[in-house]
């Protein structure tokens, strides 16, 4: 079996891997490690206030849900309109014949 794994594919895959690991590490340190770190430690300056650790995922989830929901509704409305149009055409065809 010839191997044809284009460079672009591998780059995109590696980028996704790196992003996933970075997000996981950053978020884990932010939520689970920082409470045990003194307020005066320089590490605290690399992270925003902890409320945002809750707000950002919730906002992203709501946005994602809205996008998926609107896409679904647009597709369903379009498909229903096509179905109604076809039914109407069939009626017109039947009446005229």
């Amino acid at each position, binding site marked *: 079996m010839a191997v044809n*794994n284009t460079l672009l*594919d591998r780059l995109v895959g590696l980028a996704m891997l790196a992003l996933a690991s970075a997000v996981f590490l950053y*978020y884990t340190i932010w939520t689970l490690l920082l409470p045990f770190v003194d307020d005066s430690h320089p590490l605290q300056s690399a992270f925003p206030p902890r409320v945002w650790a*809750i707000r950002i*995922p919730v906002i992203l989830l709501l946005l994602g849900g809205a996008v998926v929901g609107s896409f679904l509704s647009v597709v369903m409305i379009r498909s229903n309109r096509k179905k109604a149009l076809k039914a109407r055409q069939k009626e017109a065809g039947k009446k005229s014949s």
Partner: protein
Amino acid sequence: MTRAQQTLSIGLLVASVYMVAFLGLAPLPAKIQDDIIPVLPIWAIVSFGAYLLFKLGYGVATFNDVPEAHQELMREIQEARADLQKKGVEVD
């Protein structure tokens, strides 16, 4: 035991353990109780998302083309098309 039963029972177990910790029914150090326990569900969701992205990226990075299977598939599609057209079915 079906897959659904298994998943449901594990889910219930995790949920009850978390409930015990969340409602303070088990004595825990104050720092952990106030700062870590409430954040665990969202942390689990974010970590799950990161895990899925990781799996996707790994799949994309290690996916290889198979030109022979591609040729074979194209040939099979042609044959199926010819066959169906002969039998009067509309193709494409």
